[in-house]
């Protein structure tokens, strides 16, 4: 039996004396979509950043596609695509160059980079600096940067925040593609009733303030 895309065991994280996550266990199966829900400050982004490896939990283990995040960091990260809540906008880099960078990181061919660039909905702005993009454009660009390769787990933190209607349609199409490829999707959104998520079989994991 193959390993689940995500297995979180007994995860705990506290900031100062404030516990944010306490003994959290979570398993996400192939092609499953899980929405992490909860009020502001409940630890949704903390959970996602812990799984993405940009925050180290105080306790617990995280395995992505069977690879322990601590023991096999490169293999675990190769199976992961992570869209953070704040899109990075490096200075002096154009949209196309950033796509090429992500393509290189995820082992995509130049043809695949061209294909993603052509279908990302930013064709007219790809040669412009990322710093000149609007919030929604940055979101779209970063989302498209995750399309390379075949991930086992996709983490999306507020993926459609600031994205227009056509961008949301493209997002939903890609979400369906990932699911049909067997990738698990873990996301947070404050707009669960948005048409983007219509008829999407989604398990909801509720986080409460510990």
């Amino acid at each position: 039996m193959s390993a689940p895309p995500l297995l979180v065991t007994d995860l705990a994280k506290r900031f100062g004396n404030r516990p944010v996550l306490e003994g959290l266990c979570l398993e996400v199966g192939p092609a499953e979509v899980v929405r992490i829900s909860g009020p502001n400050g409940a630890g949704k982004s903390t959970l996602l950043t812990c799984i993405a490896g940009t925050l180290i939990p105080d306790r617990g283990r995280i395995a992505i596609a069977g690879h322990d995040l601590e023991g096999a960091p490169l293999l675990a990260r190769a199976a992961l695509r992570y869209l953070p809540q704040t899109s990075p906008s490096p200075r002096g880099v154009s949209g196309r160059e950033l796509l090429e960078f992500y393509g290189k990181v995820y082992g995509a061919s130049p043809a695949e980079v061209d294909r993603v660039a052509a279908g990302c909905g930013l064709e007219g702005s790809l040669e412009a600096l990322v710093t000149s993009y609007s919030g929604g454009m940055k979101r779209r660009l970063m989302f498209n940067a995750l399309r390379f390769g075949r991930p086992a787990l996709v983490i999306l933190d507020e993926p459609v925040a600031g994205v227009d209607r056509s961008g949301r349609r493209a997002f939903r199409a890609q979400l369906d593609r990932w699911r049909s490829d067997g990738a698990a999707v873990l996301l947070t959104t404050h707009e669960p009733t948005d048409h983007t998520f219509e008829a999407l079989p989604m398990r909801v994991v509720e986080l409460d303030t510990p």
Partner: protein
Amino acid sequence: MPRVDVWPHGVAIALPLAVSWAVLRHERASVSLNEAQTFDLVFGVLMLAVGVHARNFPFQHATSVLQSASLPLPRALMWRRAVRHQRLVLSVHYAIGLFAVCTWGALQHSEILLAALDWTCMCCAAAVVEPWVSGAAARWGRRFPERHPIAELQRSIGGGWTRPEAVVHLYAGAGALALTAAVAMPLQLMMLASMTRAVPSPSWEPFTVALAPLALLPMMNWWGQRWYEGAAFESTPWLHEATRTLAGPPTPDRAPAWIRWIPDPARRMQMRQFCRTVSLPSLRLLGPTAWTAAALTGDNLGDPIVLAAVALYVSAGLSPALRVPPTQATERLPCATVPLSGPLGRLTRRALPWTWALCPVILPLATIVTYVLVT
């Protein structure tokens, strides 16, 4: 990878320091070679100190390093990129220092050569030592099992000023400087001995000695890289978490009331930010500014009254600069800032804003007092 832009930060302080170095060294042209070399050692270390953060920023501190923590990028790539950056910025600092050394018009050529070789030694040692220390900081800047000796050490030497996992970074910069000086000093002393034996004609021997640390480079580079590769995925998030919390507790201290009297809202905001964030950056500024004050004193530096004035000046700047909000303030003493030297929890918040706010007033005032006392 997106570039790391720290140039202004790295050069802005090094340039005035180099000018102070050149001016002061020029005025002490008549001292013995030994004294001159001691003087140069102090300035060399200061010059390396003001740029240590700028040089070693991309190993773990840069935001782009954290952003790449979720990507399957081998840490060896990040290491090579950081080492390239470190050497590039170091070469800029080397050139600035060399400018300071070579503008001592009153000195003999052999003395200038000795000073230049001294500085070359320091920079060669820094090129070797700093990346290695960054590798060590990655290795020891993460969480160890509860009863592990390093975990005990992290707790005991941190004093609550940062997360135990990031404690090593409080010491890494100073450690790198100390080790650099320790590596360079024997070579410098050998050069001094060789120069005093044959002053009139400089030989190539000192050059060979000065470049000797480069022989260590491959081994230390390999060693540091192994440490970095094995630990950076884990230690970088800890460092960034500690940096975020070092900016102060979630609820900041109340700004002093007089800030409300500033009519311009932008300036009011700036002053408020200055009062809350000035502590650590101003520490870096202290070196060059103290030496600038010393430059004002000219040849009277040895006078007790001048030394007292300089001490007053430095302490006036240092006391507010050392007031750093402890990271665990949310745990121990909400909304409070505690002096670095004092036990946590002793002072209340009332003492804080005025001291910080007075920092920009005290520094110029002390400079004027120093100047008046001297002249």
